[in-house]
């Protein structure tokens, strides 16, 4: 893991990605983005409505230095819709970063692995830097890598649930085999969970609800930034091993002679 987070041909120094949904107002959101030091922020495409001009985040976000927009494809229920959303978003933002997010079930919002795969394949072939939000499935992760995704973004737990890194075992397998960055997306509640994700070898985390719904979003943004940096530093430093209790069994190596 180098100190730079590399996504396709783009390089970033922050390992905290921020979602912009659910904030009470634009000012609060902008303050949180600034405090978090995030260089990648997600946005969603919505139908323009002059009466809700407050909703237009493009203006205020484009004022921020060093922030790259990562449009998501939320609202798309299949690959075809997601591809169209991505194309529209690229036209608007000029950024080829795209978060593929397809969750057809409106209740639990779990990502559709098949449609996600199809959309990722099409978009990667079209030159997008594709960041798929996905179930924590090690096989799907390799399939997405094979079709040219720039990262995989397995969920820690359900979107907005705050259940933390409940997919830890599976994420461990994804990290072990992945040749592209692994970013935990969704489900985190506390900064300590972001630290844990980084300690176990994730390359970055994407947080939205935990910051937007915090008592003081800007302060929580800063706390997450520190937590991610801490987890990353701990990973680099090499964690001490967790010691097992010795097993009291008879010696297994008595059959080995000293010399042949």
């Amino acid at each position, binding site marked *: 893991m180098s100190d730079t987070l590399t996504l396709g041909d783009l390089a970033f120094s922050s390992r905290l990605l921020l*979602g912009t949904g659910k904030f009470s107002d634009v000012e609060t959101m902008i303050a949180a983005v600034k405090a978090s030091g995030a260089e990648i922020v*997600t946005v969603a495409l*919505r139908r323009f409505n002059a009466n809700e001009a407050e909703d237009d985040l*493009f*203006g205020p976000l484009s004022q921020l230095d060093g922030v790259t927009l990562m449009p998501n494809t939320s609202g798309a229920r299949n690959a075809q819709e997601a591809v169209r959303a991505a194309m529209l978003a690229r036209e608007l*933002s000029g950024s080829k970063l795209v978060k593929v997010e397809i969750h057809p079930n409106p209740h639990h919002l779990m990502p559709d692995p098949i449609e996600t795969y199809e959309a990722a394949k099409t978009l990667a072939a079209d030159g997008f830097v594709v960041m798929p939000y996905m179930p924590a499935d090690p096989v799907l992760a390799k399939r997405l890598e094979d079709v040219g995704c720039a990262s995989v973004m397995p969920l820690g737990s359900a979107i907005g649930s705050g259940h933390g890194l409940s997919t830890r075992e599976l994420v461990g397998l994804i990290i072990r085999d992945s040749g592209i960055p692994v970013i935990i997306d969704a489900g985190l509640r506390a900064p300590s969970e972001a630290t844990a994700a980084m300690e176990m070898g994730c390359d970055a985390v994407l947080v939205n609800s935990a910051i937007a719904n915090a008592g003081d979003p800007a302060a929580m943004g800063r706390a997450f930034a520190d937590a991610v940096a801490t987890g990353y530093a701990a990973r680099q430093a090499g964690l001490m091993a967790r010691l097992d209790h010795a097993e009291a069994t008879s010696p297994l190596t008595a059959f080995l002679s000293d010399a042949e």
Partner: protein
Amino acid sequence: MKLVVNGEDRDYDGEANLAALVTSMAADPERVATMLNDEILKKNERDAAPLSEGDRVEVLSFAGGG
């Protein structure tokens, strides 16, 4: 003429091109993406995109999302 703009019926009597429609909606042309009958039209293509009766237009902007 009758158009369907962002999913809603609308009577439009302005200049019959996409750029003019966007302006009529009080949208900043640089901050919206547009689609005419399922075809994505770039910012610089809107002037030359004529509108006709029954066209479906989508005008989209960035909002908060995770």
